[in-house]
């Protein structure tokens, strides 16, 4: 007789909501007539993500381990889940934008039709829209939320795949520039599968060394037996798999290519939500499972943080494409986030709260920045080449102003959320004595600030080209996204106190 594991349904409610919405979405895709699918799917995806968001809020304050030790419901996890669900809802809104593209959607009407074929050209201007993206994205959101709550390496692996597989697919579904989009999907898929093989091998080695895959069990074993070669190798491979998802250098190589090739709403989704999810898992792995042996991984993370900041900031300097530039920015930000991870000292450091806050602030700003990218268009879809953005302020002062504000936030200028976040993580690093890391972070912030400002200068002080891009008038969904992200970036920069307090209160990992 096998005993049923204890299962707290209320603690699982966020997942039930999101995955439930995704499953219903699959049914809708199969049975609903074509013309009602788009509104239904958008509504379902929003119900799922917003409902998941609401459930995490209701769970606030809980701290328990449920589902036979496989899931941890704790402050940090709930904070990140709420962040992911909220950012996911914003991304769904970007997916649902129909006013910008003449073809009414950023997604290809039929992915099976070869790019460039006569049928493809026909479909390019067709009113038909792809609606599979909504359940796929909802599944990915669910996977991400599971990822940050996983208290067990197996669940972590499953969550990793649940979040990755839909992403691989929707990366390849761009309506325009389909060759680039498909290439991005292939690259992301092959490298992602490669990285998850590493993660899995690491899982196997840790299992072999400790006899368990539960994080609490691993910690117990680390405390009792110390660290053997097998365990350390396993830890290394697990870290590789997670760092890949978080696009931390030197595991970042996919990031620029995929960010550039994927449909921009998907890029926004990946850049914001995947980053949050991956860092949630990194925090949980390093602090719950290996927190008592932090001397093993601390020098490693220290080094990786520096490499990531330098690579992101330096390579970003010579980019000529806005999306690619934001991809390198994302790599640099991964490095800044790692300074917060370093600043997490058992019990004393403020690194956990700082990292949580940074993830929220960065996610919101990034979604906003990519939303602006969807607005600037020419006859061939989005105009992402930097040169095409020259003199944008003349054409559309409001768009340029919003982009400038968001770029300043990414650069970490005071009175934006970026400054507060950077300030928090750097201070956390200094608190635990990692001031050389903070110095490197400051220098690389300055270097990275250069390429953000370059775009600002380009928008304001260059003559617009004769046949330059136009700025589309966004529909309601994108307008909501822009309003929310800009407002949040401002509020988190000017009066961050309450959210910092919230992150501080949530900064707790159980397991």
């Amino acid at each position: 007789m096998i005993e049923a594991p204890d299962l707290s349904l209320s603690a699982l409610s966020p997942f039930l909501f999101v995955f439930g919405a995704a499953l219903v979405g699959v049914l809708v895709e199969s049975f609903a007539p074509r013309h009602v699918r788009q509104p239904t799917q958008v509504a379902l995806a929003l119900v799922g993500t917003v409902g998941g968001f609401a459930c995490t809020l209701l769970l606030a304050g809980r701290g328990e381990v449920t589902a036979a030790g496989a899931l941890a419901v704790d402050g940090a996890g709930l904070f990140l889940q709420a962040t992911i669900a909220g950012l996911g809802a914003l991304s769904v809104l970007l997916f649902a934008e129909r006013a910008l593209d003449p073809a009414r959607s950023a997604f290809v009407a039929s992915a099976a039709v070869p790019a460039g074929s006569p049928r493809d050209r026909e479909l390019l201007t067709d009113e038909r829209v792809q609606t599979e993206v909504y359940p796929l994205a909802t599944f990915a959101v669910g996977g991400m939320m599971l990822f940050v709550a996983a208290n067990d390496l197996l669940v972590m692996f499953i969550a990793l795949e649940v979040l990755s597989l839909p992403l691989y697919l929707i990366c390849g579904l761009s309506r325009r520039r389909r060759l680039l989009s498909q290439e991005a999907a292939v690259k992301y898929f092959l490298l992602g599968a490669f990285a998850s093989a590493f993660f899995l091998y690491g899982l196997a080695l840790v299992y072999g060394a400790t006899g368990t895959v539960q994080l609490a069990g691993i910690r117990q074993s680390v405390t009792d037996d110390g660290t053997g070669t097998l365990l350390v190798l396993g830890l290394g491979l697990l870290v590789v798999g997670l760092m890949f998802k978080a696009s931390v250098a030197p595991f970042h190589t996919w990031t620029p290519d995929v960010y550039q090739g994927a449909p921009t709403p998907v890029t926004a989704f990946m850049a914001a939500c995947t980053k949050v999810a991956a860092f949630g898992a990194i925090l949980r792995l390093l602090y719950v499972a290996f927190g008592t042996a932090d001397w093993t991984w601390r020098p490693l993370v220290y080094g990786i943080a520096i490499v990531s900041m330098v690579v992101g900031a330096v390579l970003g300097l010579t980019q000529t494409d806005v999306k690619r530039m934001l991809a390198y920015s994302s790599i640099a930000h991964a490095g800044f986030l790692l300074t917060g991870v370093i600043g997490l000292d058992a019990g004393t450091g403020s690194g956990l709260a700082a990292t949580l806050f940074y993830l929220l602030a960065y996610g919101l700003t990034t979604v906003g920045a990519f939303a602006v990218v969807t607005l600037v268009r020419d006859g061939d879809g989005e105009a992402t080449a930097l040169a095409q953005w020259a003199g944008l302020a003349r054409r559309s002062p409001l768009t340029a102003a919003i982009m400038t504000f968001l770029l300043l936030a990414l650069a970490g200028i005071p009175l934006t959320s970026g400054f507060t976040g950077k300030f928090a993580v750097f201070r956390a690093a200094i608190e635990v004595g990692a001031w050389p890391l903070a110095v490197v972070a400051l220098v690389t912030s300055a270097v990275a600030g250069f390429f953000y400002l370059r775009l600002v200068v380009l928008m304001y002080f260059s003559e617009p080209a004769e046949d330059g891009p136009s700025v589309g008038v966004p529909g309601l969904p994108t307008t909501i996204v822009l309003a929310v992200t800009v407002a949040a970036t401002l509020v988190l920069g000017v009066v961050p106190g309450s959210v910092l307090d919230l992150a501080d209160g949530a900064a707790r990992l159980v397991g």
Partner: protein
Amino acid sequence: MDTVPATGLLASSWLLIALPLAGAAVLLLGGRRTDRWGHLLAIGTVTAAFVLAVLSTVELAGLDERSVGVDLFTFISTGRLDVGAGLLVDPLSMTFALLITGVGALIHVYSVGYMAHDPGRRRFFAYLNLFVAAMLLLVLGDSFVALYVGWEGVGLASYLLIAFWYTRPAAATAAKKAFVMNRVGDVGLALAIFLMFTQLGTTSYEGVFGSVGLLAGGTVTGIGLLLLLGACGKSGQFPLQAWLPDAMEGPTPVSALIHAATMVTAGVYLIARSAPLFDAAPVAQTVVVVIGAVTIMIGAVAGCAYDDIKKVLAWSTVSQIGYMFLAVGLGPVGYAAGIAHLLTHGFFKAGLFLGAGSVMHGMGDRTDMRRFGGLATRMRTTFVTFGLGYLALIGFPFLSGYWTKDAIIEAAFDRGGTSGWVLGGVAVLGAGLTAFYMTRLVLLTFFGEPRWEDGVHPHESPAVMTLPMVVLAVGSVGAGFLLVEAFPLADWLAPVFGEPEEATAHAIPPLAVSVLVTVVVALGVLTAWLLVGRREVPTTAPARVSAPVRAARAGLYADAVNEAVFMRPGIRLVRALRVVDDKGVDGVVNGIGAGLGGSSARLGRAQTGFVRSYALGMLGGAVLVAGALLAVTAG
């Protein structure tokens, strides 16, 4: 100075700033949609702020502890770091808030008539609201940093409003001049704040004044002198006085509100607010007194020579603020006197400017007094209100100026010794000159034969303009008596400056001072009558004049001195710096930039676009990670 947490209405003091700020935001962001009702909104916000200020003052007066702190918001408050902003509501700040919102509201109303036909009316009211908000922040902030933010805010608003008619080259140049000269002062203020922060670790009034005693004497003097530099820039005091007359290029309501009644008195506020600092730095105080005395003379002398009605009033402002500096430089005996004069001056000088604006309105925007004359009968209300302001300014017995200016002159004599006599003498002489140039102004404008240019048809301004003038005229008549005799300002301000001490021994009996001043003023009026009123006034200024008149006409050569002493060497210095910058600094920066760019391009080559090389990179990374971990655990 201990503050108590705000309760009741005082806790919402932030609304004082927020209301006009919101008005400015709506007008600036709302665009043309707000053209039709924008000015009404602007008046509404300022009036509401005034009502709130009155109610708050009443509530403050009822408190035992008349110094209330309001926490605005905490930016970051974790651990030892506490970055926030707050307001300080005390008698001094509320006095200023009343002046700013009260006179501000009147001038907003006046502007409706004055700017009725201007296409940029909405922009004008937006800037005015912005100014009021910034000025309120300046006086209500509870730290030097908050003051500095407001300080820069009013500087910005002043710049925008001087250059309001930016298509006129003179307006644009004047705005630039005002901005640059203000920057000189602002640097002083900023350095003073930095000095406080490095020495004391705080910039809040409470913190700084509480620990003045811990500082070395030299440091306090340094901070005091730097603050004074900032005050001189904002208040148009020697040696930074030259911008103020030029600032008259802005619309006249602006001259009345910003360049007469409120912003230019910010320097006086700064020094009065920093009283504990200056009391501990006698050297700095002496410098304040000297600058005040020098400026009284500069303003009064230059005021005698100009023919432009607004510029004469501007020089008069410079000179009157000199009186206020003189007063606050005298220490505890003078603070309340200086603030009282500031308030009455706010009334009568704003009234005078509005009157001048009304005259200009009727004369087709002309400002040359030689082409005025005989307007007393054509513009009766303007004449009466202007006349009352004039009498108040020259110190006609029992009007405002009589009470407050005499108090300052008295305090100057009471300083005792040679310096007391010199300062007192200067102040009395200044009063005589004031009487001269103001009488000349009134005679040229309102009396004598009309010397109007062709096509000018003087007419009285509409009620929306004359009404504020009437209110200000009433203030000009009664404010002095109220503030000095009926409800002594010194008692009201006692929580800030300490209980007023009755001077035991006067160098000269107060009655004698009053008589002396009145006689000198009468002499000034008489001289003006003899020189101007009885003679034919040439419609163009005579070219052949004596050297002193030429000097006065050139503003005592302040521009020339600035040009010779600062501008030309400055340009040379800038050229030299540019060479250093181009060759040296830029070389280094460009070198770093090129180095980074080069390494970026080289590193970028690694991003080949081939999946297999990416996989190789990841595998290499994984090997490095594993190796590093093994090295750490093995080591």
